[in-house]
């Protein structure tokens, strides 16, 4: 992995290229953009560029001038393996509450020691939108008199979730979703099958990170099973399908929050499926997201009455809302399958 392997994000690249070549690197940046589009990768590559020892990239000596790195010198390797003393990450534990002052403390300590190898010390906070206000303010305090060489980077999906004091102090660098074909190609390179890559690229909204996350938990197969089940929904099996859906989402889920998150994912798969049916009916063409199960899409688009698909899509959107607010998830799902059956099987 190296800078040139980062896809897209032209704006961010140009921004830092300019800052670095003019020797005007600031000390506090906020990388804002959806999860999984490369903010973390970019931060790592930036850090490597600052520390890279390769003489080829930096004729002369450690004057910063090039936004690139060799990915093979000891400095680059140690940054890649999280073992560089002057590059520190704050990772937010999944499902934890907000990051407290205490959690942020080690990162601050690292900023406030003189650099081990220098001339920089980089501190990167993942999911900075989960910083508590106290923790964020405490980090800002470190930067009131920024220690020489300090560079703090906050990675955030939702800029608005950061305290206003933080937003106003940092330089915001925007990260954008990637084009669908780029994501698809990346997924293929990672060894995903063509059908799977196409599907995940379509539903991940330009975020290869999110697509890979879905791939990791076998989301594609899960979606195929789901589509299969809903395509064959009948008055005899609708309650069983709902139950199976509920059970599947609960499998390996640590808590009800996680189960809800998974259910919402499953409903999203269904939304894409019925969207395909709708497109096919209305426009009789267009790229199907569920091309891998195109037969089912086509069959249902012929069978469903006019108006039924729109209603099903409305019901699915309502189901998403209900899952957020209702405690009885099982019941919400039973209602969903019942309503779809009533619309689809007259």
């Amino acid at each position, binding site marked *: 992995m190296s800078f040139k392997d980062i896809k897209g994000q032209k704006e961010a690249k140009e921004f830092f290229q300019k800052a670095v070549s003019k020797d005007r690197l600031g000390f506090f940046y906020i990388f804002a953009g959806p999860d999984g589009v490369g903010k973390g990768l970019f931060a790592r590559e930036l850090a490597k560029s600052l520390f890279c020892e390769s003489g080829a990239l930096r004729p002369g000596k450690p004057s910063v001038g090039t936004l690139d790195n060799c990915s093979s010198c*000891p400095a680059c*390797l*140690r940054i890649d*393996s*999280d*073992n560089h*003393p002057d590059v*520190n*990450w704050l*990772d937010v534990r999944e499902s934890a509450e907000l990051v407290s002052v205490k959690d942020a*403390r*080690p990162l*601050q*300590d*690292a*900023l*406030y*020691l*003189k*650099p*081990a*190898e*220098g001339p920089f010390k980089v501190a990167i906070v993942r999911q900075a939108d989960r910083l508590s206000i106290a923790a964020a303010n*405490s980090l800002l*305090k*470190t930067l009131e*008199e920024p*220690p*020489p060489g300090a560079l703090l980077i906050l990675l955030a999906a939702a800029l608005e979730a950061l305290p206003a004091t933080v937003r106003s102090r940092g330089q915001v660098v925007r990260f954008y979703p990637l084009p669908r074909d780029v994501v698809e190609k990346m997924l293929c390179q990672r060894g995903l099958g063509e059908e799977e890559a196409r599907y995940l690229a379509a539903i991940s909204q330009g975020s290869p990170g999110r697509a890979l996350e879905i791939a990791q938990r076998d989301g594609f197969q899960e979606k195929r099973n789901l589509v299969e089940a809903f395509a064959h929904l009948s008055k005899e099996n609708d309650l069983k399908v709902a139950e199976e859906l509920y059970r599947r989402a609960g499998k390996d889920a640590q808590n009800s929050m996680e189960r809800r998150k998974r259910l919402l994912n499953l409903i999203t798969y269904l939304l894409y499926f019925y969207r395909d049916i709708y497109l096919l009916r209305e426009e009789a063409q267009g790229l199907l997201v569920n091309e891998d199960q195109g037969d089912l899409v086509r069959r249902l688009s012929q069978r469903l009455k006019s108006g039924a698909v729109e209603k099903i899509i409305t019901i699915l959107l309502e189901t998403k809302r209900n899952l957020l607010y209702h405690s009885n998830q099982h019941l919400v799902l039973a209602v969903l399958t019942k309503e779809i059956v009533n619309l689809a099987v007259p």
Partner: protein
Amino acid sequence: MKLRFAREALREAFQLAASVAGQRTTKPVLQNVKVETTEQGVIVSATDLEVAIRLSVVEGVEVLEQGQILLPASRVAGILRESPAGELELETVQSGCQIKGKDSVFKVLVEDPEEFPRLPSMQIEPALRIAAKDLVGMVRKTAFATAKESTRYALNGILFVITDHTLELAATDGRRLAVATLDLEKTEATLPPAIVPVKALTELERLPTQEEEAVEIKLEETQVFFKTERGLISSRLVEGNFPPHREVIPKDMDKKVKVRRESLLSAVRQAALLTTEEAKAVRLSLSPAKLTVSSKTPESGEAQVNLEVKYSGKPLEIGFNPDFLVDVLRAVEEEEIELEASEPTRPAVIRAGKDYLYVVMPLTLL
């Protein structure tokens, strides 16, 4: 790499290194202790990226094959602890390391030594050399006055000031200041002041030293090194500026009294028994020939302890947080200390010998 060694020979050094390793869990490679061979023996090293420790072990270790290896700190420390005394053999084998005792054999998976952070050289060019026990003593008399977890990071460390004839250590948390000095034989040059994290200095105390052994100190722009015969400790320095502590030390104190340290310590402790967390204050009342330490709280009652002193100046009533007095009275060793004050609202000074002083802010007494 292959070593044969007496368990006892390596155990202590390994344990010491292991205590530095692994304090930061985000960097897995740091949970290892590095062992490398030298001409005469081995060097055992660990770092948490703030502090690095290196210990040379010569006696009781036989190098059969040169090399270096990373050993998972807590597991191997455990193996050395649990193995019966006697000879052990450590050898690099495919994908790991084998530790063999008389009746036992362990195969431990290990990480690549190339991943380990750079370690400081065991050879340093020292700026000065002082007795290890002097340095440890100075640290003990100042470390307690550092701030704990202040966002003014400079206050969490101890200031080292080296001039051509003295070494001075200073620590303050904003409400008190401790300064220990040591006369030096002429040193090379005056060095810029450096703020050293307390952690490195507490490790220093644990380094095995012989009676009368010296410690060499070297200061660089970003790091400090302490070297003894067998060990080396390095630490990154703290950023920021230390407050101008010399300016805080009050002069023109008109009330001075000498007190036996143990007596005052005991008196303050007794008076503190009846203070509460909300009203943590003891009152020192100085009058001719008498020093009274007392406390009074509505919740728990009153305490009063009288000490006989040689004093003939003006009377004074002044309040302190008892912890701030107990800390200093426990840290110094002199039989007699000198208490100096002027007004109840102005800082007081405690001196212990000619090389130590402590400035403490008084509390307003109700």
